[in-house]
């Protein structure tokens, strides 16, 4: 089975969704968008999919931008960013996909600055909605398109957001947050424990870890239909 790392990441995230979830992603999120659509279509999950452009269970043809007009294709109503935030505040959002430039051992996210806040060494994009979504939504699924010691760190320079982080999916592996700390859950078939250890800024205990189940033929066939232009590869 031919697949890319982006395919593996999409599949990992899709498998996290459960019947009854209401799931959200924001800007610059083709991998999460593909994951939600895959969970609905390939896995038959009863997931309500809300996106930043206002789509509710839309069926967009994915593009690298995930907040454009295409994200309304197939929606029967408009439920925009303000509505989604409000929903999360009142406890109605069960899953949100968030990313960050740095993610630390405790599952905290930094998308704000490297260095001092007021005069940073590097000004990053900003956490978008993550500071209010992470503590209020049910489960946060984090993805990060790079896995190195600058991305996966012992401690973030700045806490943009922290809260209900459940899982972190990278090009190398899957971490699960257990008792407030990220624990290595599985290593993708394309990587190795040595590679994960070498590229992670906090210690990874040496022991046997499961191999992440690769994408199945059925999942790949659906992904081809959901994202024929391979927007998901743009993130890596």
């Amino acid at each position: 089975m031919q697949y890319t790392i982006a395919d593996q990441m999409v599949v990992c995230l899709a498998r996290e969704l459960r019947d009854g979830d209401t799931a959200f992603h924001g800007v610059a999120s083709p991998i999460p968008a593909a994951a939600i659509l895959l969970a609905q279509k390939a896995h038959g999950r009863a997931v309500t999919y809300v996106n930043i452009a206002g789509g509710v269970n839309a069926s967009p043809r994915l593009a690298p931008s995930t907040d454009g007009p295409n994200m309304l294709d197939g929606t029967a109503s408009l439920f925009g960013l303000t509505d989604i935030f409000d929903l999360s505040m009142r406890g109605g959002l069960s899953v949100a996909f968030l990313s960050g430039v740095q993610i630390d051992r405790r599952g905290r996210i930094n998308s704000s600055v490297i260095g001092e806040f007021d005069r940073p060494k590097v000004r990053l994009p900003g956490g978008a909605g993550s500071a209010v979504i992470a503590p209020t939504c049910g489960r946060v699924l984090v993805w990060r398109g790079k896995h190195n010691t600058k991305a996966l760190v012992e401690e973030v320079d700045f806490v943009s957001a922290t809260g209900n982080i459940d899982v972190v999916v990278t090009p190398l592996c899957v971490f699960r947050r257990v008792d407030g700390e990220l624990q290595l859950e599985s290593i993708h078939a394309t990587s190795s424990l040595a590679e994960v250890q070498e590229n992670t800024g906090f210690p990874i205990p040496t022991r046997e870890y499961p191999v992440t189940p690769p994408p199945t033929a059925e999942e790949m066939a659906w992904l081809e239909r959901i994202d024929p232009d391979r927007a998901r590869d743009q993130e890596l």
Partner: protein
Amino acid sequence: MSKLTTLQEAMGRVNDGDTVALGGNVLHRAPMAAAAELARQGRRGLHLVKTAGAMDVDLLCAAGAVASVTFGYIAYEPPYGLCQFFRRAVQEGRVEARENACYTVIMGLRAAVYGLPFLPVRGLDGSDLIAARGFKKVANPYGEGEFVAIPAIRPDVAILHVQEADELGNGRIGGPKYEDALMAKAARRVILTAERIVETARFEAEPDRTDIPGFLVEAVVHAPGGAAPGSCAGHYGIDDAQVRAFQAVTGPEELGRYLEQMAARTAHEGVSR
């Protein structure tokens, strides 16, 4: 009385030091022609407000027009990367980055809409943004808990690009609405740029589809292509070559040429300048 005017005259109504809310989101339906005209006119000290901004904010930072940006996210989406002009301006201390969560920008605008000095929000727990931005907390007067109080954001002017407007300032948005209507209500003054100017009868026939009531708007500009090189739903998509051309700009002379080319393109498409 008609509120139709030229882009030049409308942007002349924006003062140095104004707080300016920009409609749209990232590269979608942002008021690009208006931003370019503000840059061309040499506006200074603007305090920009946007939930998620990209080239509009980056271009105004490149032109040296910006004192601060109140935002949740300032970057392009893949494949265009960070907003380098914004990033450098913040790192060099020329622009103040007033980072928020997108939702706290919305709540600040809502406070202004409601005529309140602040609104309490849930969320932000554990975020360093509270201390970094000096947000204060208020106790729940009816029960348990403390909530972060987000101060009102009252823009002097909201600049919004819409698909259709009439000469009275009624505006209709196609596709994603983003936070434009909220900005229109929060701001002291509103300027619309529009792909098409249509008869008021069209709004009267379907008032439930009017997003921006005309009485809130003080000036309307016919600006086809006014969101380019970003997208405008139902009209055009992202112009990849022109976004990249902007990102490649180095120095004020190249920026000046880019702005003139932008103005010429929109003028060619029928903008009254």
